[in-house]
């Protein structure tokens, strides 16, 4: 049996990978699935950023001469019933999904953080009221609440973002509140109090930064479900209105009737949604393992 080579063992455990690219490379090798997720997310973001450059057709231009053309060299993913290029619509659709995903996650999380922090830090009746509102919002499934919200607000991009953000608030608020309650009792908060720091300052400077890791984990996990919810809303015809190329909407136009006649109208938008969500889910899992090892599964 060979003697243990400590250099090799340490390197394998990542002892030399403490900063910069080395650390990134080390983490990437350790979390293969997470890196794959990041890769899908990058493609998704690049498609959204450079949609105009990588498309030969305008996603909105109607060309009835080429309606329902099957995929070929000219239209890589075929055309829809109006003769619009499916590839262009999917690339531009990435923008909508990304905007809704990031927009509603950011909005929902920031409000959730404010609610959770206030609720956990102030306790008393403020906490009680916030808790009840959270209970109420959590008694309705995400899609149902989002459906009612879009119906109330009317279909448009900002309204869809708001409608999906609101159901996210209670989940984030719950996690932040639980964290705040635990952090409030720790010695460093007591120390800050003893040197005369104001409560608001303690909450913002000491408690908030310590809740960031679970927040990032949660927000990444929510990103996928916001993209899915937008797709479902648009699929039901209550999300992003025409003529914007939303992936969910593309499926609703083609839905059951094209299953037989134009399968490319069903396959490609579905793959786009699934890959985008799959990527964020894979990445979110790896991020959870890195940032919040206690939850590791």
């Amino acid at each position, binding site marked *: 049996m060979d003697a243990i080579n400590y250099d090799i063992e340490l390197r394998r455990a990542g002892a030399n990978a403490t900063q910069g690219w080395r650390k990134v490379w080390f983490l990437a090798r350790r979390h293969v699935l997470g890196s794959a997720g990041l890769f899908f997310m990058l493609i998704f973001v690049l498609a959204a950023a450079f949609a105009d450059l990588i498309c030969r057709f305008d996603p909105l231009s109607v060309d009835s001469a080429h309606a329902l053309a099957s995929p070929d060299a000219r239209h890589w993913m075929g055309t829809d019933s109006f003769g619009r290029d499916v590839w262009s619509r999917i690339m531009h659709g990435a923008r909508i999904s990304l905007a809704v995903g990031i927009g509603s996650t950011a909005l929902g999380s920031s409000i959730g953080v404010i609610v959770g922090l206030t609720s956990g830090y102030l306790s008393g009746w403020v906490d009680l009221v916030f808790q009840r509102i959270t209970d109420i919002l959590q008694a*309705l*499934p995400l*899609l149902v609440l989002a459906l*009612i919200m879009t119906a109330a607000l009317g279909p448009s991009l900002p309204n869809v973002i708001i409608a999906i953000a609101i159901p996210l608030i209670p989940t984030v608020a719950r996690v932040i509140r639980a964290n705040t309650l635990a952090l409030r009792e720790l010695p460093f908060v007591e120390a800050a109090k003893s040197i005369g720091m104001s409560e608001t300052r303690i909450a913002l400077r000491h408690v908030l930064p310590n809740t960031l890791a679970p927040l990032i984990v949660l927000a990444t996990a929510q990103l996928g479900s916001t993209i899915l919810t937008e797709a479902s809303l648009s699929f039901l015809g209550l999300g992003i209105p025409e003529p914007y190329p939303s992936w969910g909407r593309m499926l609703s136009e083609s*839905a059951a009737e094209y*299953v037989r006649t134009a399968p490319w109208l069903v396959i490609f938008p579905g793959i786009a949604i699934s890959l985008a969500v799959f990527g964020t889910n894979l990445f979110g899992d790896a991020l959870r393992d890195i940032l919040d090892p206690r939850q590791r599964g």
Partner: protein
Amino acid sequence: MFAYIVRRLVLMLVTLFGISVIIFVLLRIVPGNIVDILFAAAGYVDQADKANLERELGLDQPIVVQYLQWIGGMLRGDLGYSYVSEKPALDEILPRIPITARLAGLALLFSASMGIPLGVISAVKQGTRLDYFLRVVSLSGLSLPSFWLGLLILMASVAMFGTMPIFNPNPKTWTEALAIYCVPALAVGFRSAALTMRITRSSMLEVLRQDYIRTARAKGASEQSVNFHHALKNAILPVITVIGIEAAFLIGGLIVTETVFNIPGVARFLVEAIRWRDYPIVQNLVMLIAVVVVLANFTVDMLYAALDPRIRYTD
């Protein structure tokens, strides 16, 4: 224990009251009511006719009065009338419930029977290729939109049988009935099976690290006995929570799946009612969903105490 249950019931009522207020207000800030839609379709607007119709539907009353009328009616078992079909809302909603309930039940059955065993396997084989494979499958289950999965199933059925399964409320044979319900239930249940599997896996991993598992192995208990008899018994609690909550939250998947497969259940009815601004139907359906969610949560908590003797609710 008794005090705890009473407190929970009171909180449930508070939650349901809150939801009723939120839904009622949200539906009324919508620009344009059913009367506007009807008149827009007709192409002309006679203000007198419009006012008449609004009075008939009670839409001219102050919002507080409308709310009290709804709640009062609900307590007497009168849910109002559908604006669209003009039938009592109860008669519209009740016949659709069994259809959705059957779908949900089958989907949960699928979710538990696939999710739990696969989760156990994944945990026991942690770090192996099989584990990686199962984790990717379960994550993809959480990533595929269930309406797309439904469309893919329709596509496969066209390719294989040359036809699509069409919903038939009175199936002739039991195989037909099974096909009618199982296929959409599969599309909905795949997601919750994936969720069940993930929770089972992480819960099992946690339990497998505990000392009593090592003791069981030291005693010479077989691998099978350790995994299923010792570990799964304790790991199953969080799984029950998830399945219980999924039971109520499946409605999200059912909404899109019933739309894809053209199934006349309550979930699709909700979307139709929202499109038509059929307030009485929408608000009653949302309350129905809320009641199911709240009851599911309560049942899960009670089940917890029944299954784990260490948990006793005191207050």
